[in-house]
């Protein structure tokens, strides 16, 4: 693919990008699904405890090919946000993701993940049901899943809650999306005990799509229309589709063990040390 798909089109500061992805009109996965997939059927539940509204899963067609879609759900209004818990999954959300991923493997469908979360939910029930175990299991399961996995960060890629859907063969980020070890607010609050220094945190955390490419975490940047995806959701959806089509073409038919070694090594080589 062309080299320009690894550099952003617009020059903006990380904080300006954060403001764009926080725009209340920014398209969510529920906007994109009808624009990207056909015959889409949503599937519910982890078969263990319940159904988490923060993680959407389903089966549909991408350019006629059956695929499994797993996505974190940002709400478009207060009602959607209530049922989606502001895109902060509980353990059952990750366990639903694992269930549907294994099902995709069984029926030889690729898995397409969409990441859009401030992070996994922090609460009493989440701890009781094993938030840590659920995320860990997701990382381990996706690493060994014998079918292609492609992930796209739509907006916020926050912490382990994002990474749980990010163990994949190829990761793309929308041009203004961010991916970070913790939310900039959380970062400021931990390191400086002052959450209001969010803007400063943004500028040193290396959270933009270009940073993620530079650090070997993301492979592609998907262009957004000037000013952000909300200015033209259809064009953004077309750009996402174009990336998915290219990426799937490269992955499908590839020897699965070669693919799995590639997936492992993608993460294996990330780290900076001397010896």
């Amino acid at each position: 693919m062309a080299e320009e798909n690894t550099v952003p089109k617009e020059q903006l500061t990380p904080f300006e990008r954060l403001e764009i992805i926080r725009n209340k009109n920014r398209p969510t996965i529920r906007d994109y699904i009808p624009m990207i997939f056909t015959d889409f059927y949503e599937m519910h539940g982890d078969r263990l405890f319940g159904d988490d509204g923060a993680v959407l899963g389903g089966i549909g067609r991408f350019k006629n090919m059956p695929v499994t879609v797993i996505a974190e759900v940002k709400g478009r209004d207060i009602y959607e946000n209530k049922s989606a818990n502001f895109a902060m999954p509980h353990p059952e959300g990750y366990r639903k993701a694992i269930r549907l991923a294994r099902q995709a493997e069984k029926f030889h469908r690729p898995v397409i993940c969409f990441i859009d979360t401030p992070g996994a939910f922090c609460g009493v029930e989440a701890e009781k049901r094993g938030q840590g175990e659920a995320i860990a299991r997701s990382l381990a399961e996706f690493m060994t899943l014998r079918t292609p996995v492609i992930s796209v960060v739509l907006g916020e890629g926050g912490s382990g809650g994002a990474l749980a859907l990010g163990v994949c063969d190829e990761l793309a980020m929308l041009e203004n999306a961010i991916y970070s070890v913790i939310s900039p607010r959380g970062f400021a609050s931990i390191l400086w005990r002052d959450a209001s220094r969010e803007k400063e945190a943004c500028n040193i955390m290396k959270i933009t799509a270009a940073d993620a490419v530079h650090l070997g975490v993301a492979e592609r940047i998907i262009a957004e229309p000037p000013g952000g995806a909300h200015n033209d959701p259809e064009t953004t959806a077309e750009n996402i589709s174009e990336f998915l089509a290219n990426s799937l073409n490269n992955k499908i038919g590839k020897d699965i063990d070669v693919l799995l070694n590639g997936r492992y090594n993608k993460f294996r080589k990330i780290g900076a040390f001397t010896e």
Partner: protein
Amino acid sequence: MLEDLFKMVTARWGGDDDDNSPPVPQTALFKCPRCSGSCDNEALERNMWVCPECGYHSRISAADRLAITCDSGSFMEYDKDMAGQNPIDFPDYEDKIRSLQEKTGLTEAVITGECTIHGEKCIIGVMDSHFMMASMGSVVGEKITRAFERAAEKRLPLILFTASGGARMQEGLVSLMQMAKTSGAAARLAQAGGLYITVLTDPTTGGVTASFASLGDIIIAEPKVLVGFAGRRVIEGTIRQRLPEDFQSAEFLQENGFVDMICERRNMRRTLAHLIRLHRPGQRMGGET
């Protein structure tokens, strides 16, 4: 070193009002952060750093852990000189690492190697909370990953003593990716049929709980240690309520189904050796144990 331990446990468990309490003598006393009971350091050491009053299993250095776990003289360290860099050019990170190295005598927050425990050969890793709260950056991720890979290659059991404040903020996204890297390596060891035992020690939290610490075939915890994903204060902020004392304790985790057994420090060596023996291949009825 023990002074740091005081500071850390006091910070974690609240302790007394710092300003009003009399200064702790430099040499002698250990004051338990759980029961406020005290004893002298020698007595504490003889008791394997477990509070004689309430049984709190206090935080110990990786060196002390290895000393009470491995057969004497059997430990051979891996990747001894591996040291961190500054992948996201975080301000002052190198200086912070350097000063911690001088202060603690450690190069990083985990020590890995090979040893025997009651004669049973295994690969062992011990995290040390005195080094940046044993947060997981590149070095921790790489050493842990290599421990998994070596366990698979050498067909040896792997035992990891976990302790961590979570991700290493100063390494940003690179730190986060260590979760995927280590969990992937754990998954590969599992596929190769290797035995992996985790021992959760005080405190095991955040990104380490959400990666390799939760993936053991057998998960052991020391009594009363703190284990959880989110920080207590973060959750209290969300629910606007004080959480009960035992929230995120080893016992809480066991009750909720995430810990196989709680094992006292004085029984740990024997338990680990027994568990390794139970997994030795090719054992038959009527054979020797």
